[in-house]
């Protein structure tokens, strides 16, 4: 699952997560001295790790609640063309000019896990998939902002059936050309508005927005919508994700 990151990204990512960890620790020490946590737990308040454990356990609990709240038949609201946000904001763990440039000639989508037909897909084969649909939906970022955009492609559920995926499996995982990875639950993968998209704003997906392929999930937060997908797998083992492993809630449904 874990791949070697590019040198620059690795150094950048490492120093940032270290700073965040130190920041977090400093805060906890300061916060604990206020005795706020003592009110609740009554246990060893200096043991910040136990507080972290409770928070992670609550996040897993929230995964279960969201899975229960999620209505497979409920559609995300769709909007008219006039509501589209221009320009559409770019967001990733790197800056816009660092977006990966995927070679369309050599591109192959790799499939693995609980899938019957594991033959890799080329871009022309993916572009030929039918039926093609469009949606204009609200993309909501975990940071709080939202933007309305138009994506076009095929129903992900159609694709999963086409490749003979085990639809009773728990998870679908994604690996991306920018070393990003994430995973989603099967009910969301089968939602009618979950699209495997190749076009954004009626044009071939531009590099910053996920060329050659982005999974658009209007029932999940933005970071659960992987861009530049190069491999996907179906599994029953919890796959986690780039942000999820750092503390962002895994289900992150909307």
């Amino acid at each position: 699952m874990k791949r070697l990151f590019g040198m620059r990204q690795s150094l950048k990512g490492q120093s940032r997560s270290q700073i965040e960890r130190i920041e977090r620790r400093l805060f906890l020490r300061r916060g604990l001295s206020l005795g706020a946590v003592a009110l609740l737990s009554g246990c060893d308040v200096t043991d910040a790790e136990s507080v972290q454990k409770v928070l992670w356990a609550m996040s897993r609990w929230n995964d279960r609640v969201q899975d229960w709240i999620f209505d497979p038949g409920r559609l995300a609201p769709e909007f008219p063309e006039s509501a589209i946000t221009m320009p559409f904001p770019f967001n990733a763990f790197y800056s816009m000019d660092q977006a990966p440039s995927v070679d369309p000639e050599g591109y192959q989508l790799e499939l693995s896990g609980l899938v019957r037909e594991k033959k890799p897909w080329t871009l022309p084969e993916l572009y030929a998939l039918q039926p093609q649909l469009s949606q204009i939906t609200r993309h909501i970022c975990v940071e709080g902002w939202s933007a309305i955009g138009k994506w076009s492609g095929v129903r992900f559920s159609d694709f999963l059936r086409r490749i003979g995926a085990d639809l009773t499996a728990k998870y679908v995982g994604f690996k991306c050309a920018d070393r990003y990875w994430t995973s989603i639950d099967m009910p969301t993968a089968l939602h009618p508005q979950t699209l495997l998209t190749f076009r954004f704003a009626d044009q071939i997906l531009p590099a910053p927005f996920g060329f050659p392929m982005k999974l658009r999930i209007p029932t999940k937060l933005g970071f659960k919508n992987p861009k530049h997908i190069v491999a996907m797998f179906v599994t029953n083992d919890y796959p986690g994700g780039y942000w999820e492993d750092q503390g962002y809630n895994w289900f992150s449904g909307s």
Partner: protein
Amino acid sequence: MKEGGRMTPERSHTVQVHPLVVRITHWINVFAILIMVASGWRIYNASPLFGFKFPGDWTLGGWLAGALQWHFAAMWLLAASGLVYVTYGIVSGHYRHKLLPIAPAAAWRDIAAAFRGKLTHDDLRVYNAAQRAAYLGAILIGIVLVLSGLVLWKPVQFHTLGLLMGDYEGARYVHFFAMAALVLFVIVHVVMVLLVPRTFPTMFTGRARVPAAAEGD
């Protein structure tokens, strides 16, 4: 306070002021709201609605993911405690007896009196009109916070509810202003407790001394 001077031990006695359920849920709410506000400010800072950010030292969580973990953990504590408090308040008649009736004119009169330092609160069992308005307001603000929070958390699943407050983007503003109103309430509430300090221990013990004249109320 002034009125304490005419109270002598012989002429006063202790009475029940706050029921146990109210005291317990009050302190759980304090703790949960503290976490919700401090982590909420860190979440706000990730994408501010207005041209300012909250100072990092006043926030909880260290970074966005940490703040979200605190916020979505403490929300269960607040929801559970709040639900017990509101259910108890309605079912037991606590709200009916303590917060009603409430007349806007009387509330304004008492608020004005409070600003002049002329508002008395001799019998802690009976809330004046300003208190009734403030406590009822705080409960309503809490409900608005929870409902707008639900829309922000699950804008698709609770879309119908979201339409009442301008969908996802509208709910961000509703949630923010309800937070601001609640923080204002808390500040006023704490200032009033500092001005009438004998109300403070009653939120632990539940009991307070009242003048003998108030007997039989």
